[in-house]
């Protein structure tokens, strides 16, 4: 369809998920706006002009083959790397080049493909760690304002309990991170970022390496999270998963964003089809 073609061309000069304008009539004010991001390492161009937007309260899938630059793009968004050029805006404010701590504090949460579980701490401690702006994290307060700290801690533990229940990890609350299976660690990783209560959650291959029986569970949780109002952007390379669960899809290939739009449209985009000739099988 003509509309799909012009969507692909619109990549270069809008910082908007241009295609979304056509299809869901939203205000066009994305929560996260990536515009022309370029990142090279030595001679290697990892990201070569990525442009797309993530609408509030949407689930967006970022797909592409290995080496397409997806993780590097995540690293640029979360401050691990500063892009060579281009901008990244969260809620209108530029965040590219800021430190990971600063980006996280502004409301960007992120999980890693290989979970960085705190292995020497219990699941409960892992989760409680993630709470933001804890008064009790200041040594002075720990020493001299025990009541304030206990009150805050009680709140945090309540939220931890909620998440344990949501993710069905309650029976593992006192287990140490080192005792968890890979899939459980993925869930814990997700739980931590949820507890952090960010404006947008970036998930790096949330179901990779997860037991197939757990996969559906996880995806259901993501949808539920989204239903409750969270904006989610996740990297995935299983095209079926993305088509089934996402409102919006961004396709990357060789560091560029090829296409961006609702799943059905993107699926039929010529350039996407050409890039993935033969399609994917999981």
């Amino acid at each position, binding site marked *: 369809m003509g509309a799909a073609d012009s969507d692909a061309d619109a990549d270069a000069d809008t910082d908007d998920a241009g295609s979304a304008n056509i299809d869901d009539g939203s205000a066009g004010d994305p929560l996260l706006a990536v515009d022309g991001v370029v990142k090279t390492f030595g001679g290697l161009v990892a990201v070569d002009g990525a442009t797309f937007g993530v609408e509030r309260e949407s689930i967006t899938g970022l797909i592409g083959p290995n080496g397409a630059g997806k993780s590097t793009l995540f690293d640029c968004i*979360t401050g691990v790397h500063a892009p060579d050029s281009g901008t990244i805006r969260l809620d209108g404010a530029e965040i590219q080049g800021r*430190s*990971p*701590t600063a980006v*996280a*504090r502004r409301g960007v*949460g*992120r999980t*890693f493909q*290989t979970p*960085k*579980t*705190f*292995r*020497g*701490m219990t699941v409960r*401690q*892992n989760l*409680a*760690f*993630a709470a*933001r702006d*804890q008064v*009790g*994290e*200041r*040594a002075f*307060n*720990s*020493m001299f304002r*025990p009541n304030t*700290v206990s009150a*805050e*801690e009680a709140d*945090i533990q309540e939220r931890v309990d909620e998440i344990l229940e949501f993710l069905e990890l309650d029976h593992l609350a006192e287990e*140490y*991170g*080192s*005792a968890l299976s890979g899939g459980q660690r993925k869930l814990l990783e997700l739980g*931590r*970022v949820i507890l*952090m209560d960010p404006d947008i959650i970036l998930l790096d291959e949330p179901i990779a390496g997860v037991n197939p029986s757990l996969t559906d569970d996880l995806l259901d949780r993501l949808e539920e999270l989204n239903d409750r109002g969270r904006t989610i952007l996740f990297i995935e390379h299983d095209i079926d998963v993305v088509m089934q669960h996402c409102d919006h899809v961004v396709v990357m290939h060789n560091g560029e964003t090829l296409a961006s739009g609702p799943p059905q449209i993107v699926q039929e985009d010529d350039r996407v089809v050409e890039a993935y000739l033969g399609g994917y099988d999981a």
Partner: protein
Amino acid sequence: MALLTGWAAFLVGFATIAAIYGLLTVGLNVHYGYTGLLNFGHVAFFAAGAYAAAIVTMPPPSTVTNASYVVWFNLPMPWGFPVSLAAAALAGGVLALLIGLTSVRLGTHYLAIATFALAGVFSDILVNEAWLTNGSFGMNSVPKPGRAVLGADVWQLVYLIFALVSLAAVYLLVERVMNAPFGRLLKGIRESEAAAEMLGKNPTVVKLKSFVIGGMITGFAGGIYAHYFGSVVTAQFLPGVTFTVYAAMLLGGAASNTGAVVGAFTVVAFRESTRFITTAYNWFQATLPEPVTGILPAVFGPLPNNPSFIPSMRLVVVGLLFVLVIRYRPEGLLGNPSEVDALGDEGGGD
């Protein structure tokens, strides 16, 4: 009339030193056990505290032999004592801040080397800047508060109680802080700085805080030490001290304050008991019946007869302790195996 004789005197002395080492170990535990900072220069904070206490309370150089120091405050006891201890803790904290600013951002190896080397440089400064520290001759007129009034024996006992109370107070304070979210924050950063950053925490600032807290505790121990021995000399503050404290911490169990104290008492007990080896040997030799008096010399004769033999062997045992604990029981006596399992991974995360 002497109150403390023989064994009693020995035990009081042992317990006081053990209490001081307990403080040193609790301090190091904040750095390494909780935050995963491999601080190989710990003795520098101890020395900073001891020298600060000395400078604050030493009498004017004109009244002391072999005096080349020009900075002195001569604060009178007893009210000068808490000031001196506060100065000691402050000195430890400030030195930790300075060293920390250059090192905490660094990865494991760099931090170990930087702290090790900075402690070495600090030691060189202590030896060379005699205008401040009286050089290698040392500051030997540090007052022992209350000793004139109480008499030598009673003072030993009272000072021991003071040292133990101080240890208990610091222990309780550190326990409280580490059981609070701050402790959790330290541990998370120990486990994975990358994850901590992604969750909005600032590892550099937190590590610096941990470094300063540990430094203050260690400086405080230096102050207590200075007023106990009455003498602060650079030769007392060698790398051997740092690693004896490590032995205590590893043996007791990293990230366990109770373990730190237990480890300290154990290691000091071991060290003090080896002083009696020669005495014990002579006693055995004297009491053995005629026919077998040849056995002991035959067995132990070939060993070197130089005065550094036993002290060196003690340090060999310290080294062995490191190797054995790390390899076979990394959680030490009282540590948590689940916690220590992860201590082997790169603190900086992937």
